[in-house]
């Protein structure tokens, strides 16, 4: 079952780039299977951050001295890199945010200001809390109504129901690209097309898509796209919100402060052009440079190769894990990315997770910030093994062995 991608993918060299993958956990070589929560970082990214602080660090924009110019150039070049990473047509449409959660909240609190009583916003039943709560808060403020696309038993969106939810009152659709709890890859092109037919604007939550393969916002056809750097080998505290220029320009500003202004006076203040209008305050310069370096790293490995390698790994893991008696995979959509959520009959995820930990295998247990989805399936949570391109078949074998032992102990 050794496939093409696995044969040519330079996994040994890649693993050597990740210092944390060389460590132990509870006295066993670490098997890290929680990349969907946050990925590990290659040395290249750590070096880019350190090199920035050691050579170029200064506040950006408006500085007349060489150091500040260098910092600004590096910072703006990083924006360009991120625009290219998602094939955004214009780097000025790329806004630095803390992460995916802030990206969604930014849209809700700026674009959302135009919503009024009776307007309808659509999310799905598989959304992360970060793509539910901002809309609930907005609905409370504005009188808009939240509608929910149901999820089928295999973890796919019910697209027939989605079509029925859409109507002339629909002003906004916000849907996850890839589910963090199930791994389902949603049909985002169709979702956008159908929403646009009724004149609604679409935001795609790309938190679990950008770490696993090529994303092309123009091909998707969405209006906004947001994701977190820390899940794709970048530093914590930096992510991206992309939006179409005309929409961004039509939006009121987000935070007030330095950078986002044109001219401030007590008689009246005017705002800067995009993207700066949405970037009040000193930005996370090292975060931007680190994230761009992560994007460069992943691009250099070839995103298609990453996607194929991970697909084979997931197929292998699914095949091996389902041999365990009583084990049930939650989320069996035909299109999936790198997530294996499971339960074992009669066993609590916390018990399984604890026993895996003691065997050096790091998985996440619980609701994965998707309580409504867990309720939909009538379960308290799952055990989730999530993969990145730096995982191996040996990691899967360790997971299978550790789970088998845990299940035996708990039976």
């Amino acid at each position, binding site marked *: 079952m050794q496939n093409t991608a696995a044969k040519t993918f330079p996994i040994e060299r890649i693993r050597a780039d990740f210092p944390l993958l060389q460590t132990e956990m509870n006295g066993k070589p670490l098997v890290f299977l929680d990349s969907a929560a946050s990925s590990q970082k290659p040395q290249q990214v750590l070096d880019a951050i350190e090199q920035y602080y050691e050579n170029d660090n200064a506040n950006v924009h408006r500085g007349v001295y060489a150091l500040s110019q260098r910092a600004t150039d590096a910072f703006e070049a990083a924006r360009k890199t991120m625009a290219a990473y998602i094939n955004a047509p214009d780097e000025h449409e790329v806004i630095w945010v803390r992460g995916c959660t802030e990206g969604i909240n930014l849209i809700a609190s700026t674009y959302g200001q135009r919503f009024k009583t009776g307007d309808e916003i659509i999310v799905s039943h598989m959304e992360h809390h970060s793509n539910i709560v901002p809309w609930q808060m907005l609905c409370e403020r504005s009188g808009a109504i939240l509608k929910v696309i149901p999820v089928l038993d295999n973890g796919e969106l019910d697209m027939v129901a989605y079509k029925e939810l859409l109507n002339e009152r629909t002003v906004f659709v916000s849907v996850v690209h890839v589910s963090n709890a199930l791994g389902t890859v949603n049909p985002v092109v169709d979702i956008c097309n159908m929403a646009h037919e009724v004149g609604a604007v679409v935001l795609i939550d790309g938190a679990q898509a950008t770490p696993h393969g090529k994303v092309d916002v123009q091909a998707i056809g969405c209006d906004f796209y947001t994701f977190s750097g820390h899940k794709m080998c970048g530093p914590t505290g930096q992510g991206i919100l992309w939006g179409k220029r005309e929409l961004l320009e039509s939006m009121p500003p987000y935070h007030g402060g330095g950078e986002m202004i044109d001219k401030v006076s007590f008689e009246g203040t005017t705002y800067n052009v995009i993207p700066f209008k949405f970037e009040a305050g000193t930005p996370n310069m090292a975060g931007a440079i680190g994230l761009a370096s992560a994007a460069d790293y992943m691009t250099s490995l070839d995103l298609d190769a990453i996607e194929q390698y991970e697909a084979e790994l997931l197929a292998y893991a699914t095949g091996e894990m389902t041999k365990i008696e009583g084990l049930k995979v939650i989320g069996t959509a035909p299109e999936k990315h790198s997530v294996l959520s499971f339960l074992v009959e009669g066993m*609590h995820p916390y018990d399984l997770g604890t026993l895996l930990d003691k065997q050096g295998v790091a998985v996440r247990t619980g609701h994965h910030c998707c309580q409504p989805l867990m309720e939909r399936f009538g379960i308290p949570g799952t055990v989730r093994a999530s993969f990145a391109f730096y995982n191996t078949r040996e990691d899967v074998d360790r997971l299978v062995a550790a789970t088998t032992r845990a299940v035996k*102990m708990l039976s």
Partner: protein
Amino acid sequence: MTIAERQAEIIDEFEMFDDWMDKYEHIIELGKDLPLIDAAYKDEDHKIRGCQSQVWLHAAPEGDKLRFTADSDAIITKGLISLMVRVLDDQPAAEIANTELSFIEKIGLHEHLSPTRSNGLRSMVKQMKLYGIAQAAQQNAQANG
């Protein structure tokens, strides 16, 4: 046995395991053996919510002592609960209120009581002590009243 003696006993008991998995094997056994809480008490009022696992705790005074029963939906949590109950059940309220529970640290399971673990255990220990404090205060009031 006093609380201190019971703690010492548990520490002894765990000394024979030099492997993590054996230790957990034992905790799981203890969880299975835990006398269950009366079904009537397994409700919202007696629930201690955790993010990872839930705990139900019931306390009843018996003379100057307190009797505890408890349960959890996760077996490892249940095993750890059974140790807490073994140490604190049927002890004088005043002692429960004032005791330091050091055995969990000594048997190397302190992580389960981390404030960030959120399995309900830490809150349960706090709750047990609160029962002790309340009961002791009431006895004092009666003695002086």
